[in-house]
């Protein structure tokens, strides 16, 4: 465990290999990194460089071939899926490129979802407040298909913050949006992040977006390098 008690995410020799025809393909080549609580970190790189895979590992959505990932001091690679899910519920929020809203639930119900999973009281009230904060008052009872891409991503941002998780992972949050809408979503994301004091780990290939983060890490052929700003 890192001596620095302020470290909220840490990886040690994180490795991911997948078997292929030639034998195996190494996607992550023993990555060591750490993120302090409240920091905003961008992981940049070209398509296929392994940034989304790394994000999946950091968030405990996937398990590595070797190495360890610590979230708030707990080695999540030693946990079973049951424990990882509980940890995600408490510590982690997500924003995805393709929004990942449940099409069968309304905007309000989608925001309520993580609160209900955690069995929080006043889920509806909290969700309502977050929808208002992202500027979607009056659209609570609309289904995702009735909303534009930007609006859907706002719902996703509201959902990510509503659970009050200390870490927020964002995977190409503006990747499916036009420049103007993307900018607005990015503004919203950073504004809420700083207001809530959340740790933000953002995967993007958009250099402008990355530049808004305190740190930038570049993923190249499975290796991670700190970009000096």
């Amino acid at each position, binding site marked *: 465990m890192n001596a620095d008690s302020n470290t909220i995410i840490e990886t040690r020799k994180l490795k991911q290999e997948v078997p292929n025809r030639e034998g195996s393909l190494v996607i992550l080549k023993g990555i060591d990194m750490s993120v302090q609580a409240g920091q905003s970190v961008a992981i940049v790189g070209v398509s296929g460089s392994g940034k989304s895979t790394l994000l999946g590992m950091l968030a*405990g959505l996937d398990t590595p071939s070797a190495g360890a990932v610590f979230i708030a001091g707990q080695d999540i690679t030693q946990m079973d899926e049951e424990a990882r899910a509980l940890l995600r519920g408490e510590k982690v929020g997500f924003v995805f490129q393709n929004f990942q809203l449940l099409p069968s*639930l309304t905007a309000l119900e989608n925001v309520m979802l993580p609160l209900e999973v*955690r*069995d929080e009281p006043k889920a509806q009230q909290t969700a309502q407040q977050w929808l208002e904060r992202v500027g979607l008052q009056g659209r609570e009872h609309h289904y995702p298909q009735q909303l534009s891409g930007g609006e859907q991503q706002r719902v996703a941002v509201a959902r990510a913050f509503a659970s009050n998780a200390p870490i927020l992972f964002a995977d190409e949050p503006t990747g499916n949006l036009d420049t103007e809408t993307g900018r607005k979503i990015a503004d919203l994301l950073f504004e809420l992040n700083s207001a809530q004091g959340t740790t933000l780990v953002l995967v993007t290939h958009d250099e402008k977006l990355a530049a808004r983060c305190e740190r930038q890490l570049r993923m190249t052929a499975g290796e991670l390098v700190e970009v000096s700003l």
Partner: protein
Amino acid sequence: MSRTSSWQSVQKLSVKLLWRDWRGGELNVLVAALLVAVTTVTGIGLFSDRIQNSILDEAGSLLAADAQITGSREVPVQWREQAESMGLRTAHITSFQAMSFGQEGRLQLASVKAVSDAYPLKGELEVSDVPFGVSEKTTKGPQVGEAWLNSRLMASLDLSVGDTVGVGDADLVVTRVLINEPDNADGGFSFSPRVIINEADVPETGAVQVGSRVRYSLLLAGDVDSYYDKWKPQQGDHHRWRNVTDANERVTETLDRADSFLLLAGSLGVVLAGVALALASKRYAQRQLSHVALLKTLGLTPQRITQLYAGNLAIIGFVVVFLGIASGWLLHWVFLELFSGLLPRALVGPTMRPFIIGALTGFVCLLAFALPPVWVLKDTPPSRVLRSDVAGGTVSQWKTTSLGALAVIGIVYFYSGSWLITAILILSGLVAIAGVTLLARLLILAARRLGSRLGTTWRLGLASLHRHGSQNGFQIMIFAMALMLLFILTLLRTSLLTEWQRQLPEGTPNHFAFNIFEQDRAGLESLFVQEDIQSTPFYPMMRGRLVEVNDEEIGERLERLRPDGDDFRRELNNTWSDVLSEDNEVVEGEWFDAQDTEQLLISIEQDFASALDIQIGDVLTFSFGGQMVNAPVDNIRTVQWDSLAPNFYIIFSRPVLGGQGAAYLTSFYLSQEQKPLLVNLLSEYSTITVIEVDAILEQVQSIVSQVTKAIEFILSLVLMSGLIVLVASVQATLDSRLQESAILRTLGAKAAVVRGALAIEFVALGALAGLLATAGAEIALFFLQTQLLNMDFQPNIYLFILGPVIGAAIIGIVGLMSTRKVTKVPPLIVLRQI
């Protein structure tokens, strides 16, 4: 967070998601398949349960009792006392012929039935106040001094209710018109117009004297089987035991076959629904993968994912089972309506069994077919939210298949109660599967080769068929199974109906005439020609008793062989003829040729011969009124007793005792309009006895027509299951087809090309499935018809052409209907939704 509240929140979420999925139509096929399974099983179960119990309870009414002991001598008093001491209820009938006298010197020979006060023990008498009037029911016979005449006798004696009728020497008051007797189906033979009187009035009629032909019956109700065991050793030569099965033989066989068919159809319906359920559930699970991944990302643990989806299935299960049982209840009323004419008059309420079976079927189907794909949802990797190509949790194909196969075997056996049916169906299923894996691959490959030389649409269609090789192989198998079951049922229905119609074609004789003496024969024959009445040949008939087989006295032989059932010592009606009836078939030896008629030889009925272990060459001795006649057995034949044509156990090759004392027997057909001729015929030839069997014939024909309706109804239900399977199966691969078509359209393919390619793919799939289904169906039909239904098998060659055409048409239509949004909805929306 407390466990209870966490459980509650999962349940709340579960119900919410389920409700949304239902509204979004995601669950339609799954629910429909389950509903059809539960409805079919409950409906058929309730129907057979109520019918069987009612028949057990009320079939006795065909005898007006549970059993009868009848004979030409009075039934010993101690038998009655013994029965009563065993707790049985008893009644008496004394039947005889007597002259009846009406208005203005009118007279008519009547068949008198004198009944004790307890008659009928089972069933009800139907009576009216006017001849041919609307009947009401009663469970009591006439009081002392009363007579109930049937409509025909009322008319011929010109009597009304309240008049006095002379029955032999007794004068009785007509208080009711007899419309129907519960034991009318007692052979259906009302020799003459009927009158029912009270037993106490018999002495006064003076008709029962030494030498008169009287039949005495002791009616028994209660635990007749244990009484039978006690009574059997005391039986003697003069009395016979009859129970419900004996009385009801013709009807039973028809109903038995119908019952087998219903059960078979029902279990196939469930199997089809099970397959549809498995497919629908697989697709449902497939479409939940990204939801599950998201829920896991948001912190829902695998255990709670399982709780959520198992909970959903449980909710679906309970709701659908409840609805299925309710609609099964409605369905059984439809069956009861269809069978209304031949059902016992008062139906016994259902037992709990059909409801339990319906519910069990629902949950077994859900567990065996729907749960496996949903169960593994918990293994969906959450990283699927980042990359949708990450595979979800998969069930081992082996495990699902064996679980499904086990459930199918269990279900078919459970409903059919026959390992034979189960084995036949499983075997044809295996043949179809083996055939599919081999043939489907070959044909798909061949189609691909062919397609490359054709136009774009064909090339796309056939390439798609080839590209999804294993998926299409599986789909062809499902289509082939569904089509096979449908072909089996449809063909089986057709051959069952043809068989029944063959048994009772239009113009089946509905009257028997006997006691026709030589001097009346020519006159009667010319009357038939003159009035255009179809008749069977005139058979000479002589009553004689079999007394010895190869010099062994018949009693000793019976003692040695102990055959069940019939009393072989009774007097038999024997005939002689050198012409073999159409409905008889010689199974051993040869029918009499010209030389045989020069000596006295015997042709014997097969069951009779085997019961008494009589072989060709054995010498039989008959007593004709004390005169002994010996003759060897020359051939053994089968007889179709239900043809309602005159038939005999024993046919001699030439006249016995020079034909002395023989009277003739014939049967003929009278339409309703020709019925009045009967009165002329009887008045002209007063010695002839005519038995009207048109009532019983009508009963049998109405059974056939009602059974037909019921069979068609259940067939349509099974067809529905089949269609659901097809829809479910098309839907199972819908997403990938939609996606490909959307891409094609994005690339600029015209709607006609896309639809054409889809049509070619589905039509080709359907045709291949139809061909395989035909092969499977023919094999299954061979075994079902020859082994189960005792019918002849005739391969249906046309099916080999029709099968693929039907398959192509059905699957083409279902496929195109399900994929119509491909060209209706903008491609981007299709791509986004997937």
